[in-house]
C-alpha cells in the first residue's frame, strides 16, 4: 500500500457516525480526506448487524432521534440512499396489566390519553409545553460552537445573547430554567402527576444513559436536553435497513466526494512534531501525513494514549481524566420466529418504542442496584421491533427485537461473563410478563454489555451518551476547558467525537460543527 503518496488534507481518526459526518463535510468542501477506522466497518454506534443469517438489527443505537435535517440535506444523504421506514415513532409505556399508555403526539391521541388518565392529562400538556419552551431555549446552543471560556468578551456575548433569548421566550423562562437545572425529575413528576406508569415513562427518557436514578438532582434538565436534541432532528425516526443505513449513506457521501475510508486500520499514535500534529502512525508503523487530524474517538484516549502525556499539560490531563464515560446500559438483540404479541397492545402499536419502566420507584431501585454493582431484579428497558415497519430486516413473517436494558452495573463482581446469562434470563422473564410467547419465539440472540460495546463498536466506556449529560459536561466544559471548542491546544489536532459538545446520541453534530470550525480556521 502506498499510503504516503496519496497526500491527504485531513485525516479523521475513528469512523463512528461523527467521524463520518466530519469527513463528509470536509470532503464535500473539496478536501482530500482519509478516515481511519480500527474496526471492520464504519458507523460506530450506528450500525446494522446480523444476529444470525437473515436477521439484521441495529446493533447498538436503534432510533435516530436528534440527527438534524440540515446535516441530512447538506450532505444529500437521501440521494446517497438514506430512507426512513417510519418517521416520528410513537412511544408506548407498557403496563403490566395491559393498560398501555401511548404518549400522545396528535390531538386525537391526546383525547385517548385524556380518557385513560383524566387527572394527569392537563398536567401532561403543561409539562410538555414547559419542557418544549426550555428545549427551544437550549436547542440553538447544541448546534453551535461553544464560546471560549478564556475569552471574556466571547463569553459575555454568549451570556448576553442567552439572556435575550430567554427574555424573548417570555418572562418566566429564565426562572424556569434556573429552577429546572438542579431539580430531580422524580420530584418534579411526583409533584405534577399521579399515574406511576406515566411518571416512569417520562423519567426513563430523562435518565437513560446516565447512571443516576430519577431522584438525582439535575435529571430534570436532562429531559429538557433530550427534548432539545429531538427538536434538532425530526422526532425519533427509524431508517430503513436499520441504523447502518445512516452509516452507509455517509460512507457513500464521502466516497462520492473522493474521500477514502480505510477499515481495519488501527491508529497507534498521533504524530507530533515540533509541537504540532502532522499525521498519524498506524499500528503497523506506517506513517500517514496530513496537516489536519480530527479525532472522533474519546478525548481521553486521543490525548493520553494517541498523543501521549508528554504533549499535554498536567491541568488538561486532570480535566480529561475527570471526564470518563461509564456506560450503564446493555443491548440485547433477539431474532424471533413470529411477531410477539404484547398483551393488550393494539396491533398497529407493535412498531412503537415500547418502554418497560412501570414506576419511578422501580427506576430508582434499578439504579441503586446498578450503583452497588448488582443486577436489577426486573430490568427497566426500551424495546423496538424494527422489522414491524421494515420487513427487509428479517425473513417474511419473522421478526427481530432490539432491547436497551437500562441501569445495569458498569462493572460487576466476578466479571460479566458469569452474569451475562443471568441478565438475559431476567430480561426474558420480565418481557414474558408483557409478551408471554416471547421465550418460545426466540431463535437466536446476542447481548452486548458496556465493555462489549466498547470493544466491538469503539464507544469509550461503552457509554452511549459519552459521559453523563450534566452541566459540567456541556458547552464550555466538555470534555475539558481548553478543549471545548473542538480545537485542541496542539495545532493541527481537532476533536470531533461525542466527547465534544453537544455530546452523545446519534446526532452527527459534534462532527459537523467541528469540521465546520476547522474549515473556517483554514487548518484544512
Amino acid at each position, binding site marked *: 500500500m502506498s499510503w504516503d503518496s496519496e497526500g491527504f488534507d485531513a485525516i479523521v481518526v475513528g469512523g463512528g457516525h461523527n467521524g463520518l459526518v466530519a469527513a463528509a463535510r470536509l470532503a464535500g468542501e473539496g478536501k482530500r480526506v482519509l478516515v481511519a477506522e480500527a474496526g471492520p466497518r464504519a458507523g460506530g454506534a450506528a450500525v446494522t448487524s446480523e444476529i444470525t443469517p437473515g436477521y439484521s438489527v441495529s446493533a447498538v443505537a436503534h432510533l435516530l432521534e436528534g440527527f438534524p435535517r440540515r446535516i441530512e440535506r447538506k450532505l444529500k444523504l437521501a440521494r446517497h440512499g438514506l430512507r426512513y421506514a417510519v418517521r416520528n415513532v410513537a412511544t408506548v409505556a407498557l403496563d403490566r396489566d395491559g393498560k398501555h399508555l401511548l404518549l400522545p403526539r396528535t390531538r386525537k391521541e391526546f383525547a385517548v390519553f385524556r380518557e385513560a388518565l383524566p387527572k394527569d392529562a392537563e398536567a401532561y400538556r403543561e409539562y410538555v409545553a414547559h419542557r418544549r419552551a426550555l428545549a427551544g431555549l437550549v436547542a440553538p446552543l447544541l448546534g453551535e460552537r461553544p464560546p471560549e*471560556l*478564556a475569552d*471574556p*468578551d466571547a*463569553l*459575555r456575548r*454568549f*451570556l*448576553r445573547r*442567552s*439572556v435575550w433569548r430567554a*427574555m424573548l421566550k417570555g*418572562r418566566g423562562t*429564565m*426562572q*424556569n430554567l*434556573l*429552577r*429546572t*437545572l*438542579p*431539580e*430531580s425529575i422524580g*420530584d418534579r413528576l411526583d*409533584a405534577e402527576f399521579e399515574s406511576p406508569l406515566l411518571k416512569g415513562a417520562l423519567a426513563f427518557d430523562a435518565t437513560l444513559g446516565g447512571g*443516576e436514578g430519577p*431522584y*438525582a*438532582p*439535575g435529571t430534570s434538565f436532562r429531559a429538557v436536553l433530550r427534548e432539545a436534541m429531538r427538536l434538532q432532528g425530526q422526532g425519533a425516526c427509524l431508517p430503513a435497513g436499520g441504523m447502518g443505513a445512516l452509516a452507509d449513506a455517509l460512507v457513500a457521501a464521502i466516497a462520492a466526494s473522493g474521500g477514502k475510508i480505510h477499515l481495519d486500520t488501527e491508529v497507534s499514535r498521533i504524530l507530533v512534531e515540533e509541537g504540532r500534529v502532522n499525521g498519524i502512525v498506524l499500528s503497523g508503523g506506517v506513517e500517514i501525513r496530513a496537516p489536519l487530524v480530527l479525532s472522533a474517538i474519546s478525548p481521553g484516549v486521543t490525548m493520553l494514549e494517541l498523543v501521549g502525556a508528554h504533549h499535554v499539560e498536567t491541568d488538561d490531563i*486532570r480535566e480529561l481524566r*475527570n471526564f470518563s464515560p461509564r456506560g450503564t446500559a446493555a443491548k440485547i438483540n433477539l431474532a424471533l420466529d413470529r411477531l410477539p404479541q404484547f398483551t393488550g397492545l393494539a396491533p398497529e402499536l407493535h412498531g412503537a418504542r415500547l418502554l418497560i419502566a412501570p414506576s419511578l420507584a422501580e427506576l*430508582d*431501585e434499578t439504579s*441503586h442496584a446498578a*450503583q*452497588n454493582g448488582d443486577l436489577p431484579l426486573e430490568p427497566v428497558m426500551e424495546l423496538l421491533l424494527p422489522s414491524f415497519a421494515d420487513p427487509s430486516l428479517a425473513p417474511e413473517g419473522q421478526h427481530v427485537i432490539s432491547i436497551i436494558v437500562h441501569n445495569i452495573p458498569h462493572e460487576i463482581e466476578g466479571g460479566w461473563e458469569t452474569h451475562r446469562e443471568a441478565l438475559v434470563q431476567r430480561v426474558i422473564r420480565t418481557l414474558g410478563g408483557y409478551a408471554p410467547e416471547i421465550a418460545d419465539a426466540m431463535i437466536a440472540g446476542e447481548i452486548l454489555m458496556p465493555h462489549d460495546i466498547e470493544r466491538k463498536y469503539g464507544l469509550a466506556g461503552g457509554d452511549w451518551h459519552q459521559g453523563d449529560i*450534566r*452541566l*459540567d459536561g456541556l458547552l*464550555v*466544559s466538555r470534555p475539558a*476547558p481548553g478543549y471545548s471548542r473542538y480545537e485542541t491546544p496542539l495545532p493541527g489536532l481537532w476533536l470531533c467525537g461525542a466527547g465534544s459538545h453537544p455530546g452523545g446520541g446519534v446526532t452527527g453534530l459534534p462532527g459537523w460543527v467541528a469540521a465546520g470550525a476547522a474549515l473556517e480556521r483554514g487548518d484544512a
Partner: protein
Amino acid sequence: MERHDAIVIGAGLNGLVAAACLARAGLSVLVLDRASAPGGIACEHEVAPGYRLPRFTLGSGGLPPRIVADLDLPRHGLRFIRAEGGVTCFPGGEYHASYRDGVVQRREIARFSRVDADAFTRYRRDMLRAARVLAPLLAGPARPRRKGLFAGLRARLAKADRISAMAPADLHGLLRLATLPASEFLDSYFESPHVKAHLAAAAMMGATLGPCSPTSAARLVLPWLETAGDAMGGAPETLMPVGGPAALVSALRSVILAAGGQLRMEAEVTDIRIKDRKVQGVVLANGEEIGADAVFSGLDVKRSFLSLFQWKDLPEGLVERVGRVCMRGVAAKLNIALDAAPDFPGLPEGCPSLGGGLRLAAEIPAMQRAYDDWRARIPPRNPLIDVFIPSFLDPSLAPQGGHVLSALVQYVPDVLHEGPWSAERRKALGDLVMTRLAEVSPGMEKHVVAFEVLLPDDIENEIGLTGGDFSYGATTLDQLFFNRPFPGTGGAETPLRNFYLCSPSAHPGPLVMGGAGANAAAALLAAKRKEART
C-alpha cells in the same frame, strides 16, 4: 386592641434575631411563642435532673460575626470560642481530625498520604475562593425586590457581564462544585478514602443528598463559609457560643427587652387576620386579637401558610406551591446524660479537635448506601452520627463529673417502608447508636444516666416542625437562593403584604444561622424607608 409595629410568631433563633433587629431599629415588637421558654428547636432541656442540653439540635453552631456585631451581642453577655473542625472516627479504630493550624493539619493528613497533605493546599484554596463567591450571596436576600421588565433584564445582563469577567479556572471550578457529586469532586484532589470521608461527612450533615448524589459537592463549601481570615492555613474553625444555644437565646432575649420589645410565652397563634391580601394581625388560641403592621413567621413555610391562614385568603396557586416544597426529616436526635467523662482511647490524649465534635462515619460508598437506605425508608443500618459533648466546653451543663452528649443521627427516615416507627424499631436505633458510641468509647454504656431518642416524627409533634426537617425545607439547589422556599421568592417577602417569613424556610435557609431572621428584618426596614421617602 393591642397593637404593635411587628409581631414575630415563634421565638426560635431566627425569630429572635428578626425581633432584635427590629427592636433595635426602634419598632415596637412582640414575640409570641406557644412554648413556655424561648428557643424553638434550640431550646434547652433537662434530660435528667441537672443535665442540660439543647433538646433538638446539636448545638454546635454560632451566629455569623456580622449579626453578632449588628446586635451588639457581646454587651449582652455572649462570648464565643473558636473550636477546631472535629474528628471523624471510622469503623476499625482509625480516626482523622481537622486542625486550624496549617502545619498540624498537614501532618495529620500526612498520616494517611503525603500527597494528600500537599493536595490539601489546593483544596483549601478552592474552598475559600468558592466561599468568597458564595458568602455575599448568602448575606442578603437572594434577589432584590421585584423590578420592572427592563430593570430585570438590565440586572441579568449585568450579571452575565460579571460572570464573564471571572477567571476561567474559577468559573469552571464553580460549575464543577455546583454540579458534581461530593465523591467525584474530592477524587480530583485526594486519594486517601479516610481524608475524603472525613471531608464529606462534615458536609453531609442535614442534607437530603448522599455524597455520591450530583450537586452534593456544593455542600463541601459550607464549613468554610464563616472562615474569615486564612491566617492559620489549616482546616476551617467553628465559632461556638459559650453556654451553647441557650446562651444565644438568652443574649438575644436580653437585646430585645433592652430595646423595648416584648416576649410573650405560652401564647399560641392560631390565625392571622388578613384583609385585601394585607396582613392585619394575629389571633391567639385564647381568642385574643393583636394588631400589627407586619407579621413575621418563624415557622416553617408549610406551617406558616397552611396552618395560620384560611386557605381561601391565600392567592391562587399558593397552597399548591407551598405543598410542593420538599420537607423530609433526615435526622434523629439522641440526648444522653453520663455520670462520668467519656473516654476515647482511639484518639490521642488531649486532642484539641474533639472540641469541634466527633463524627462516626464510614467511607464514602457506605455513606451513600446509608443515604440510599433513607431514600428507600429502611431503618438505618450504618448511619452517620454527629456527636457533640457540650459539657467539655461548659462543665456547668452537668452535675460535677457528669457530662451531656448530643448525637444527631443522619439518614433516619421520617416514616419507614413498613409504616410509622414502632417501639422496637426505635429501641433498635437507640441500641445501634449506643453500640457505635461504645465502639469509640468503650464502657460508655455503663455510665448512662438518661437516654432519649427523638425521631423526626417526635420533633414534628413536639415542636411543630413539618416532617421534623431541621433544614426547614430540603437544601438541594432547586430549593435554595431564588428558589427558596419556592421559585420566584428568594427573600423574606411573601405574596401577602406585610407578611414576612423569617424562618430558615426562606433564603439563606439553614446555611447561615440567623440569616433568615436578619434578612426578614432588613426587608421590613427597607420597605419602611421607601415608604418614608415617597
